[in-house]
């Protein structure tokens, strides 16, 4: 052991001085280790020469330089999943006010129960509708198990889809808050799916894909009843659902890439075909649905 250590040190001392790679110079300085030192120095000399040739880096590195500068031009949108940020930082002012209202309501529990119950039956445009959405968000963020979050998210999304129908039939416009809510629910569903355990993920993705497909079918049937004032809004909701559906499809093809991107809170890393890393993650071309339609039958 002692000899090995002194050999290591003698070798290191010779190698620190490049000229000492020449065994005829190095060996006399370490006579005790000379028989073992010589072959090792020869090997080191060969290795140095074998590793010498290097390709011309400046010419080769333009692509990765461009990639880095593209990443620099595109700062991260968010670092943690949105559902995790809800309880604190991402609550908007309106939500914070609602939280205060809820706190007051809890103090007046009997009355609040009636209000929450009334809010559950409210629809878009109703005074208590924001309260309904808030209660749902609290329920969703409070669920610890990803499978419960998925079930809740799908149920809430189903309600949003059902709420669109009377609006279209009444030829009313669709509130922007409802559009945002649908988009956020789909995002949270995908985050929840990415949070499931590895064996469950594939099944969860298929389940979410099928549900989204059903919602899309419902929304498609409403197209005929639209007016110029709400056709665009309905189209936006359909587009958000289509993108969610496409994400589930591509996630099934590459589970690990999906899991990594969404668990890191970086969904923009899971780009779908036709999307640009520099563009919005919701910037999918409208006609892409037609392109993937044949694949949907395989789900």
């Amino acid at each position, binding site marked *: 052991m002692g000899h090995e250590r002194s050999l*290591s040190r003698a070798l290191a001392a010779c*190698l*620190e001085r490049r000229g000492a790679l020449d065994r005829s110079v190095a060996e006399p300085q370490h006579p005790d280790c000379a028989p073992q030192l010589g072959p090792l120095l020869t090997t080191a000399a060969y290795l140095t020469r074998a*590793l010498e040739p290097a*390709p011309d880096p400046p010419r080769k590195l333009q692509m*990765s330089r461009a990639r880095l500068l593209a990443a620099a031009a595109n700062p991260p949108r968010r670092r943690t999943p949105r559902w995790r940020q809800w309880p604190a930082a991402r609550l908007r002012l309106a939500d914070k006010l609602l939280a205060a209202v809820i706190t007051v309501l809890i103090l007046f529990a009997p009355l609040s129960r009636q209000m929450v119950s009334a809010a559950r039956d409210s629809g878009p445009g109703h005074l208590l509708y924001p309260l309904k959405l808030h209660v749902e968000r609290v329920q969703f963020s409070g669920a610890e198990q990803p499978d419960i979050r998925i079930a809740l998210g799908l149920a809430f999304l189903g309600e949003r889809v059902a709420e669109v129908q009377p609006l279209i039939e009444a030829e009313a416009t669709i509130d922007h808050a409802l559009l945002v809510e649908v988009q956020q629910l789909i995002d949270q569903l995908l985050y929840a799916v990415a949070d499931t355990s590895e064996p469950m993920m594939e099944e969860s993705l298929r389940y979410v894909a099928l549900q989204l497909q059903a919602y899309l079918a419902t929304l498609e049937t409403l197209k005929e009843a639209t007016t110029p004032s709400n056709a665009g809004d309905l189209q936006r909701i359909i587009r958000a659902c289509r993108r969610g559906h496409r994400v589930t499809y591509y996630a099934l093809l590459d589970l690990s890439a999906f899991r990594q991107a969404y668990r890191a809170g970086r969904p923009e890393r899971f780009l779908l075909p036709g999307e640009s890393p520099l563009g919005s993650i919701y910037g999918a071309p409208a006609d892409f649905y037609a392109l993937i339609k044949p694949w949907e039958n395989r789900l």
Partner: protein
Amino acid sequence: MNSLSASEEKLLARARSNDRGAIAELYDGYAPSIYRYLYRRVGNAQVAEDLTGDVFVKVLEAIRREQVWRISFRAWLYRIAHNVAVDWFRSHSSDDREALDGLRLEADTPGPSAIVAGAWSQAELRSALRKLTENQQQVLVLRFGEGLKAREVAEILGKSVGAVEALQHRGLAALRDLLEG
């Protein structure tokens, strides 16, 4: 504690505020050596270029997170490059790597400079190098490919200088055994 020069500190501060000029400057300053290092590890120019891109994207993310490193910036870069190379080796089957080896060795063979004047060819040496342990490869590539001192290698690997010297000794001995056996 950071061991950064004043100019590095300024450059990183500018990069942190998303100054693309500073990011480009960092890249231009360090990318060639990181590329050469990765090329020596993976042996394929295209893969080395992709991995160099990965290293600098990770660096950019770390700078944005204001991650503090306890070693010099250069050593930290090599450590990231090492991790990226290890991930690459893990995610690629040995078949893929052998295919790459084939391409690289074919490209290496023709030039007269590619042949070491002695008992072993460059290809034999590189092939034997690949058979060493991960740590031994890392030490030998950094010492003899990059020409770093044992102290710098120790900093990159987060090991003591003594441990690096021992790895260097065992690596060279194992390499010789492989070449002679």
